[in-house]
C-alpha cells in the first residue's frame, strides 16, 4: 500500500509519519512527474489552501489529480485539503478540485486566537484528538454523504465514497484511528457507502 502525499506546501511530513506508522509506503507529490509513479491513495494535507490550489494549477497537476479522484482514487483531506475538494466555497468565488459535494467556509472560527482542541467522536471512535487551526467549517453537504463527526452543530468530517474530508488535523497527535479508518473504508473498501 503506497500513500502519496501532496507536498507542495503544508504539514505533509506529519501525514507521511502517520501512514508510515500504519505500515504504508509514502511518496511526496511536488510536481507533475511525481504523479507518474503508482500509488493507491492520495493525502491532501493541512496548510494554506490558496497556496496549494495555486501550485496545483501552476505546476500542472490539477487536471490529473481531479480526474483520478473522480475515477475513484481514495483521497483523504484535512483542513486546507478539504477546501481543495469542496464543490463550493462560501464567501469565495474560487473552486479548486470541486470533487466533493460540500460547501465550506474558510477561517470560519476566526484567526489563530480562535484555534482550539477537543476530544471528539469520529464515526464509532470516541475521544479522538482533534486540533482545529484557523479551521474551515462544512456548512452544507449533499444528501447521501456520510457525516462522521460534528462539533457544536457543525459538520467536521464527511465521507463520499472514496473521499474522506475533515476540518481538523488528526495527523498532529499520536492517534492513528482516523487514518486507519481511511485505509479500512476508503482504500480497502471494508464497508460500502
Amino acid at each position, binding site marked *: 500500500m503506497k500513500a502519496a502525499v501532496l*507536498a507542495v506546501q503544508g504539514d505533509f511530513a*506529519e501525514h507521511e509519519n502517520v501512514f508510515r506508522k500504519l505500515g504504508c509506503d509514502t511518496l511526496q507529490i511536488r*510536481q507533475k512527474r511525481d504523479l507518474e509513479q503508482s500509488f493507491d491513495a492520495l493525502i491532501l494535507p493541512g496548510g494554506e489552501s*490558496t*497556496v496549494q490550489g495555486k501550485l496545483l494549477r*501552476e505546476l500542472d497537476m490539477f487536471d490529473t489529480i481531479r480526474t483520478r479522484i473522480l475515477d475513484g482514487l481514495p483521497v483523504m483531506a484535512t483542513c486546507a485539503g478539504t477546501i481543495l475538494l469542496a464543490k463550493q466555497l462560501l464567501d469565495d468565488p474560487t473552486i479548486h478540485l470541486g470533487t466533493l459535494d460540500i460547501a465550506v467556509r474558510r*477561517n470560519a472560527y476566526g484567526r489563530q486566537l480562535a484555534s482550539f482542541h477537543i476530544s471528539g467522536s469520529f464515526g464509532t471512535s470516541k475521544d479522538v484528538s482533534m486540533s482545529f*487551526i484557523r479551521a474551515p467549517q462544512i456548512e452544507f453537504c449533499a444528501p447521501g454523504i456520510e457525516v462522521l463527526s460534528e462539533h457544536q452543530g457543525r459538520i467536521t468530517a464527511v465521507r463520499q465514497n472514496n473521499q474522506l474530508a475533515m476540518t481538523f488535523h488528526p495527523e498532529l497527535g499520536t492517534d492513528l484511528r482516523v487514518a486507519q479508518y481511511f485505509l479500512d473504508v476508503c482504500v480497502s473498501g471494508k464497508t460500502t457507502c
Partner: protein
Amino acid sequence: MDEQQYLLNCDLARMLKGGVIMDVTTPEQAKIAEDAGACAVMALERIPADIRAAGGVSRMSDPGMIKEIQQAVTIPVMAKCRIGHIAEARILEAIEIDYIDESEVLSPADDIYHVDKRQFKVPFVCGARDLGEALRRINEGAAMIRTKGEPGTGDIVQAVRHMRKMTQEIRRVANMADDELFEAAKQLQVPYELLKSVHENGKLPVVNFAAGGVATPADAALMMLLGAEGVFVGSGIFKSGDPAQRASAIVKAVTNYQDFKMLAELSSGLGEAMVGINPQEIKTIMEERGI
C-alpha cells in the same frame, strides 16, 4: 498560556511549512503576495532595507495599517514587536494578529530581557543564530524559530551561517551520550529538558524557517537545501523590479528546491533583484540584537 494553546500555536507554524512568508507594507502588496502564493504575510510599515536606510528608532507598525492588511487577505497575518516590548506585543495580540515576530529588525526596547511569551495566548516567532539562542527563545515561549540572517541586505551569507551553525549543533547534540547533555546545557545556557528533546529527536521542538537576506529563488532553494522548513522573504520581493513574478518564482522554488532544471526556469527573466549590501558596508548589525 496553557500547554494546549502552546501546541496549537506550534501547530499553526507546521501548517506554514514548505511555504514563503512575505514582508508587505500595504494592503495592495499583501494582495500581490497572497496571489503569488505567500502562505502568510508580515505586515510592517517599512521593509528592513528601508529601516536600514532611514536609520533612527524603528518601532511596531501602526495597528490601523496592520488591520487593513488583515482585511485584505485570508492567509495568516504576522507583525513585529520590538524585543522585550511587552506593550507592543499586547497591542498586537489585542488586534488578533496570527503570529508576533519579536524581531531584531526593530530597535530593541529591552537590552536584557525578551518578552515572556508564555504569558500570551498569541503565538510568537523569534530569530536565532545558533541552537542556544533558539532554545532560549523556545524556553521563553516562542512557538516558531527563524534564522536571523542580516535583514534588509539581500545578502544570504549570514542566514547560511546561522542555519549551518544550528544544524551542526543539533547533530552534535543528537550524537552525545546521555550524560554529556548536562554539561552541554550549561555551555549552551539552555534548559536541560529542551536540549534532551533535541538529543532525542534530532531537531528543534518547533518549526524552523530561514530569514534574512533571501533575494532570489536560488537563495530560497539554498536555505531549503540547508534544512530550513520554509522561508521568510523581507525586502527581497518589493525591492525588486517585478515583485509579483519574483514572489511567485520564490514560492515555487521552495516547493521544488531539489529540481534544478525547474529552478533554472524559475530564475530566468525575473528582472532586477534588490540591490544588496555587503557585510562590510553595514553600519547596524541587527543579528547581534537579543541573544
